[in-house]
C-alpha cells in the first residue's frame, strides 16, 4: 500500500496552480518534489497537509481517502520553510504542543518531550525561547514537534534553504539519518537539484503546476523526459535535430552543425541531451570506442568548485563538458585551446518530441 497517493489533483489558489497531479509515494520512501520557484510545490504540499482542499481529485494517505479531512485529522507532520515555531512558547512547550492538544497528563508529556529531544540532540535547548535558536536548531525543534505529534509522514518545504551553505551539507546527512531512524515517509520539496539527488529515493519534477517526470535520481538525471527536465537538472547539452539514418540499433541525428550517433532506433524530429560529465576531453585525437567525436575551441572556462565547466564551440554549436581541476591543469586547458570531445552513443539520451 502506498503511503500517499494523489489522483488527478487540481487546485488553483491565488497566483498558484496545481493541474491534474497524480503520483504515489511508497511507504518509508524519501520522495523529493523538485521544481523551480512558482511551480506550485508549496501548494501541493499544503494540499497533502489539508491546509487547502483540492478543487478536483483525491488524496489518499495510508489507504484512507483524506481529501475532505481537516489537517488535524490527517496525522501528518508539516514543516514549512521558515519552520513556523510558536514564538510565544519555549522550545519545550513547542514540542509539547501536540501532546497538550491531546490532553496528555503532564508527566507523560515530559517523558515524551525529553525522549524526543534527546533523540534529536536538543535537550539543552528545551528552556530556550525560539527566537534565540540558530537555523539548524530551529529545524530540529520543528522536526521534534512533528515527531511528538506521532506523524509517520513528514512534509518538508525547502527545509535547507534557510540555513547557510556549510550547514546545509551537515543537515542533508542529518535528514537522511533522521528519516531512517524514525522510520518515516518523507515528502521533501526543493528547487535545488543537488539536494534532490543527495536525498531522494525518487524524484518528481514539477513545472507550472504539473508533474512532468517521476523517477529515481538516475532516471531523472540521465533520462530526462523533456527538455525542461534536462535544462532544470543542468544537463547543459540539449539539441534539437532530425534523424538522418538508422542502422543496427544506432541512429544518426543531425542537430545544427553536430552529427550525433545515439543508441536506439529513432525517426523524425527529436531532442537529444547528454550530460557535461559524459564528455571526455582530450588535446589530441585518441582512438576510443566512443562513437561521437567533435573538434572545437574552448570559449569559456567556468570553475565550479572541484569541477570545471568548459564551453566548447563546435561549428556553430556549443558543447559543455566537465573536467576536474586536476585535468584542467594536466591538460593545460585554457580559453582558445583546440580540443577533441568524445561521447558514447549510450550516454546520449533521446527525448521523443
Amino acid at each position, binding site marked *: 500500500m502506498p503511503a500517499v497517493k494523489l489522483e488527478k489533483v487540481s487546485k488553483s489558489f491565488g497566483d498558484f496552480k496545481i493541474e491534474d497531479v497524480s503520483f504515489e509515494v511508497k511507504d518509508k520512501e524519501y520522495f523529493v518534489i523538485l521544481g523551480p520557484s512558482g511551480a506550485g510545490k508549496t501548494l501541493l504540499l499544503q494540499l497533502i*497537509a489539508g491546509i487547502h482542499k483540492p478543487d478536483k481529485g483525491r488524496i489518499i494517505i495510508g489507504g484512507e481517502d483524506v481529501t475532505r479531512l*481537516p489537517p488535524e485529522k490527517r496525522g501528518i*507532520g508539516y514543516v*514549512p520553510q521558515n519552520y513556523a*515555531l510558536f514564538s510565544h512558547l519555549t522550545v519545550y512547550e513547542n514540542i509539547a504542543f501536540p501532546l497538550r492538544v491531546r490532553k496528555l497528563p503532564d508527566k507523560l508529556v515530559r517523558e515524551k518531550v525529553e525522549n524526543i529531544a534527546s533523540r534529536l540532540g536538543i535537550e539543552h535547548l528545551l528552556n530556550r525561547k525560539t527566537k534565540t535558536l540558530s537555523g539548524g536548531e530551529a529545524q530540529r525543534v520543528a522536526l521534534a514537534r512533528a515527531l511528538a*505529534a506521532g506523524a509517520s509522514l513528514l512534509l518538508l518545504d525547502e527545509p535547507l534553504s534557510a540555513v547557510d551553505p556549510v550547514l546545509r551539507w551537515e543537515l542533508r546527512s542529518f535528514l537522511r539519518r533522521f528519516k531512517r531512524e524514525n522510520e518515516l515517509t518523507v515528502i521533501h520539496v526543493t528547487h535545488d537539484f543537488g539536494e534532490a539527488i543527495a536525498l531522494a529515493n525518487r524524484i518528481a519534477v514539477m513545472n507550472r503546476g504539473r508533474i512532468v517526470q517521476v523517477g529515481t535520481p538516475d532516471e531523472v538525471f540521465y533520462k530526462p523526459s523533456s527538455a525542461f527536465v534536462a535544462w532544470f537538472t543542468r544537463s547543459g547539452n540539449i539539441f534539437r535535430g532530425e534523424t538522418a539514418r538508422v542502422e543496427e540499433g544506432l541512429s544518426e541525428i543531425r542537430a545544427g552543425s553536430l552529427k550525433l550517433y545515439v543508441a536506439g532506433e529513432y525517426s523524425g524530429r527529436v531532442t537529444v541531451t547528454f550530460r557535461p560529465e559524459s564528455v571526455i576531453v582530450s588535446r589530441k585525437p585518441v582512438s576510443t570506442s566512443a562513437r561521437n567525436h567533435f573538434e572545437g575551441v574552448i570559449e569559456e572556462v567556468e570553475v565550479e568548485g572541484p569541477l570545471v565547466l568548459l564551453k566548447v564551440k563546435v561549428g556553430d554549436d556549443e558543447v559543455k563538458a566537465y573536467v576536474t581541476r586536476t585535468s584542467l591543469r594536466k591538460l593545460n586547458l585554457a580559453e582558445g585551446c583546440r580540443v577533441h570531445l568524445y561521447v558514447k552513443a549510450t550516454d546520449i539520451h533521446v527525448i521523443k518530441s
Partner: protein
Amino acid sequence: MTKALIVFSSLASLFVLYITLPMAWSIIIGLPHAGEIFGDSEALRAIGLSLYAGFTASAATALLGTPLAYILSRWRNKLTKVLESVLEVPLALPHSVAGIMILLAYNSRTGLGQLLSKVGVVIEDSFWGIVFVMAFVSAPIFVSTVRAGFDSIDVEVENVARTLGASWLQTFFRITLPLNLRHVLAGAILSFARSISEVGAVLIVAYYPKVAATLVVERFLAYGLASALSLTVVLIFISVAIFAALKIVLRG
C-alpha cells in the same frame, strides 16, 4: 546642508513647543488646584463614571471586536474590504453626529430599543447610553489595531498547529490569540483612552449621569476657566498614565 538642517530643526522645535506648551502650562497652573478634587464629590463621581463606562465599553469592544478583527485579517476579499471601510466611518464623523446616530438607532422607542429595554438597557440619559457611545466611537481604533496584529502573524504558524492536531478553535486560543495578545491589549487601551475622552456624542445621548469630560464642559461654560482647572489637570494625569501603560504594553 547645515542651513537646511537649521531650518528643519527650527520648524521641528516650533512644533514640539506648540504641542507641549499647553500640557506644561495646564499642569503648572492646575497643579496647585489638583488637591481640590478630593473635596469635590461631583468631580470624583464623574471621573469614576468615566473610568467605569470606559472600561465596560472597551471590554465589550475587545470581546466583540477581536473575532471581527481576525475575520478581517484572514478572509481577505471584496466583502471584508468594504466592511473594513464602513467600520472606519465613525472615525470621520463629527462626534455630535455620532451621538445623534446612536440615539436614532437605539432609543427606547425603536424596535431594537424596546428589545434592549427588556433586558434593562435604556440608553437615554443612562450609564448604558454612555457605554454605547464610547463603544461606537472607539471600535474602529480597536479593530484596526488588532487586525494589524493578526496580519503580522504568519499563517503558516496556524497551519502547523492544525497539522499537529489542534482544531481551528484550539489553534486560535492556544496560538493566534496569545501571539497577538500585545495588540489586543494595546487596542483595548487605545479604545479606553478614546472612550473617556469622548464628549460630543455623550452630550447628545446621555448628558446625565455626567462623565468627567462633560463636567469639564459644564463648569467651563457656567463658571469659567478657573473652575474647570482641577478636573482638567487630573484628567491630564489620567491620560498620561494610560499612554504610559500603552508604551509598556507595546515594548514588553
